């Protein structure tokens, strides 16, 4: 464990730990398993995602963090042979029960990916409002307002407001990722899934995204996958630690308020991981 971590944890221990799950819950996962062609990738994950908080999924490579995240907006529907079992509730509705169409679900649960992926043929403006257009919004005044509002929310407005007609490739990596965040926010999702959103970015761009995450939780519930434990400690309120089991399926080891998980984990394997003994 490096010195920063030690200092940070000592600081954390001094604070009173509040479990964010005592407040409103945005999503509930009950015995969620994901299998590809009959082979388990994630097994029996059960925890609540507190509303307007940041929940981090951490764990070494192969522990099923991303696989679990992608089951939350039914992105596995595209993969032949993928099967999600168990119950995932958004509010009171099971997202796999057929009550919510996948397209509607994905406009309620947005996603930001590992690598910034703005649409290369669209202008910055068209990128931001693309989700609204997919959902049938055509009125220019609505699109304009949404574009400005979500670009401001993504802390990008001031940097690009004069060149909204330019293309995404003219932005830096960090700006592109904030553009993708703005694009996801424009649809007004209830939950925002972030799959290692800073793994392709430099430290300064990473810091900006992390600051943004802390601001955004006021308006949207965030679930973030990160391989960076310090990032999880910095930005999240609740942390779920996953680990690959003996049959190579990811299992949930411990879910706890971030302060607690990083200072007094209940499971010795969690302690081993946060102390850098494996992964």
């Amino acid at each position, binding site marked *: 464990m490096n010195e920063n971590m030690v200092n940070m944890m000592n600081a954390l221990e001094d604070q009173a730990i509040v479990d964010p799950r005592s407040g409103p819950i945005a999503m509930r996962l009950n015995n969620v398993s994901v299998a590809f062609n009959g082979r388990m990738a994630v097994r029996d994950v059960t925890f609540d995602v507190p509303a307007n908080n940041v929940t981090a999924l951490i764990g070494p490579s192969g522990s099923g963090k991303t696989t679990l995240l992608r089951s939350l907006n039914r992105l596995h529907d595209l993969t032949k042979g993928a099967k999600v079992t168990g119950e995932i509730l958004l509010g009171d509705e099971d997202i796999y029960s057929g009550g919510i169409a996948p397209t509607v679900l*994905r406009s309620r649960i947005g996603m930001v990916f590992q690598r910034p992926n703005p649409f290369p043929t669209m202008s910055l403006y068209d990128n931001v409002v693309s989700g609204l257009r997919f959902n049938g919004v055509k009125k220019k005044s609505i699109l304009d307002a949404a574009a400005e509002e979500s670009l401001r929310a993504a802390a990008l407005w001031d940097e690009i407001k004069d060149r909204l007609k330019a293309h995404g490739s003219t932005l830096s990596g960090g700006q592109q990722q904030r553009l993708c965040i703005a694009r996801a926010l424009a649809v007004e999702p209830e939950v925002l899934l972030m799959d290692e959103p800073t793994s392709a970015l430099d430290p300064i761009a990473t810091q900006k995204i992390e600051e943004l995450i802390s601001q955004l939780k006021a308006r949207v519930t965030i679930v973030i996958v990160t391989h960076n434990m310090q990032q999880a400690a910095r930005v999240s309120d609740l942390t779920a630690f996953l680990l690959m089991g003996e049959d190579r399926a990811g299992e949930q080891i411990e879910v706890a308020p971030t302060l607690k998980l990083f200072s007094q984990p209940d499971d010795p394997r969690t302690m081993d991981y946060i102390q850098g003994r494996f992964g």
Partner: protein
Amino acid sequence: MVVAANSSQTAAGAEGRRPSASARGAYEWTLLVVASLFGIVSVWFVGTIIWQSVSTFQSQGLYLLTGVNWVPGAGTGQPSQYGGRAMIIGTIETSLIAMVIAVVIGTGTALAINFFVPQKMKTFVATVVELLAAVPSVVYGVWGMLVLAPWFLNTIGPFLSSLPGGTAVLGTTVAGKSLLLAGIVLAIMVLPTYVAISREVIGAVPHELVEASLSLGATRWQTLWRTVIPTARIGLFGATSLSLGRAIGETVAVSLVCGGSVGTTFKPLEPGVTIAGWIATQWGEAVGSDQIGALFALGAILMVVSLAMSMFSRRLVAQQRRAAAVV
């Protein structure tokens, strides 16, 4: 220092194996001769076509592009008339029909191969498509003549003519062979080429963009129409131009099914001719430098059009590659 020592060693080693001056000379001379042969043949080829067609361009002028009569004057005492309108319009019409059909069906097929065909079957389908692209065009022509033409004569033609305004717009088929049939045979002929290229172009669209689109609540159709096709559009345009280049110069397949008469109406169900088909069928009957020159002139027009098209499509495909590299 070590590097320097090594490199001098290598140089010394190479010294021992360096070919003799005469061997080097032979090597360079062989390459030079082969390359010059190619250059000479190209210049000879283009030069001949221009040389042979100059007199026709001079005597016919614009009539070569707009005229409707193809009457050699030799032996009649009248001046020759070489009007290429029917051939030029026939070429454009059959190519356009072929392109519309090939682009619609071909893009759909390429999308299906990329997004709906199971992974295990993809290689198989792709191989079959590429094999079909290698079938000689005369095979497509014979098939069109023996299988499609009778069907056109008895079923498709009468049906199309019976549609409201069918006869006025499409005309009436007499023998099945027609500009429309030629266009369809061309479409079938270029489809494998078009699918083979567009399958790769569409496959090069990053999967992250598909996921980005779906994660915003887009349907699969919206994702294809607004994300995949726009991203691949320049490459698809390139595939179209390359296919068009093939269709526009096709000779045998077209002359077997187009009907072969110099018409004036250009209705799709009626017979017509194309430049390439006309050159091939008239060559045997052409007597005198005058008539041969006229065919060369048509060939020159076709060559310029094809060349322009090919350069255009190359540029587009190269642009798409650069754009893809930026993404």
